[in-house]
């Protein structure tokens, strides 16, 4: 429970709560990118350097901007009239609290014997070779999935003639 972990944890929880609570969706996405940055800092702290950097690049660099663009494109003319929380918001909140209490109890009650051995950060060569050896199939599938997602996203979001009459 080092101090740096505490600082980052407070930063993450604060920005996540803001991301889910703020009224203006753009503010939500900006605070969300602070959360992603905090999570990347966690990964770096845990020694998974490559994952931390990929997290920054993928989430802060791409997903945050994608979300912001989507918000820009769906800015309905009625503006922020629609309320921030849906009608049955309370039920959702209660379920979330219930989930958290169950998870928290599970984590705190079972003494998880975490080995605190000094872990050398995983090197890129290690990841590269394991990608090419044990995880070749997932790598190919991920390539396929990303291409399909790319084409699918474009086809769905493309302006077709019959929409714009």
């Amino acid at each position, binding site marked *: 429970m080092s101090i740096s972990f505490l600082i980052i944890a407070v930063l993450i929880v604060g920005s996540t709560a803001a991301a889910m609570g703020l009224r203006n969706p753009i*503010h939500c996405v*900006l605070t969300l990118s602070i959360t992603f940055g905090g999570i990347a800092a966690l990964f770096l702290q845990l020694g998974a350097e*490559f994952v931390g*950097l*990929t997290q920054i690049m993928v989430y802060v660099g791409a997903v945050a901007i994608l979300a912001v*663009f989507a918000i820009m494109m769906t800015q309905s003319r009625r503006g922020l009239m629609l309320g921030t929380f849906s009608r049955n918001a309370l039920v959702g909140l209660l379920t979330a609290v219930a989930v958290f209490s169950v998870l928290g109890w599970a984590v705190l009650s079972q003494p998880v014997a975490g080995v605190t051995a000094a872990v050398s950060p995983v*090197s890129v060569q290690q990841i590269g070779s394991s990608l090419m050896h044990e995880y070749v199939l997932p790598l190919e599938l991920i390539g396929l999935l990303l291409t399909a997602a790319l084409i699918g996203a474009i086809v769905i979001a493309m302006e077709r003639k019959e929409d714009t009459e």
Partner: protein
Amino acid sequence: MTQTPDQVFVILKHWLLGYVPTSVHAIASAVLSILPLMVVFPLLFAITTLLERKGLGRIQNRLGPNRTGPMGLWQPLADGIKSLTKEDIVPFTADHIVHFLAPVLLVVAAFLAYAVLPVGRNMALVNLNAGVLFFFAVGSVVELAVFMAGWSSRSKYSMLGAMRAIAQMISYEVPLVLASVVVIMQAGSLSTVDIVERQATYTGIFPHWYVFTPWGFLGFILFMIAATAESNRSPFDLPEGESEIIAGYYIEYSGFKFALFFLGEYLGMFATSGIAITLFLGGWSAPLSVLTFIPSWAWFFLKLLTLICMFIWVRGTLPRLRMDQLMNFAWEFILPMALFNMVIAGLWRFMNPGAVRWFVCAFLILVPMFVLSALLKRKKKLQLRTYSFAE
């Protein structure tokens, strides 16, 4: 061989560290290596603004600024004072927090990129195992800062400029990364220090820089084109096209925040050209083995200055690209060429060294170049212009 002139800064730092109590040792060594970077590159920014204005002047058959100081030497100082004393107007409807944070994030991201830049022999701030990936990760944060700037000033021009800037930066970041993947394949490591170490060896008097290989030369050109687009400069400065949308995303900024945007942009330019030097031009290694007596950091900054002059030269020459030309060029020429380049670099690696390998790869590069440039030219037939108005 660590002759003293080459390692003068490293020795200086250790000598200074001697005076620091060991408890604060780690922080002191971090500060001691960060501080010179924070001083040197803004100074380089000041020099570049002067160099740029004089260079552009000379290209257009006129003198550059020569009023302030002998050769206009105090012009950056004058600009700095002017931007400091200018009133900082924030539009009333602007979103004040985000409006303030945008330039801060931009400059922070620009400075972060210098963590992995090997400025001289063992003078890289931190030897990250995934150095190049760190650079691109931080580079992608800049787009978020640009959006924050554009959106928070609540003005049509800045929003339009921000959208254009982000579209351009995203579509040129892909080829930027792919152009550097080629070097990583060849060097076998993502760490910038290793990449430069691998290029610093010589056969006879010629260095093993990657730019002297066919795929390296093509990669260098693609990287520089993408770097120009990444930093919104010269032919790709559409987001701040003065004629159409006045000043793009930093239109509602004035005073020091405006200067911060320029600082961020120029620091981004230096960082990308620094990485281009590290990847293709052999970082701090001397161009000829006989010239290694000149210290390594001097070579790095000499190469950086030549690249800056290249940027200025290109800025003085090429007209601004239209938005669709810009996008077509990215997705239909630069990206396929980068992918071809990766294939050819793979081929290069598994062919046995010699002249045959050189010509085969060079030929294999020229063919797609011709084909793609023909394709790109074919698209230029004039069609009826269709307008789609915002409903």
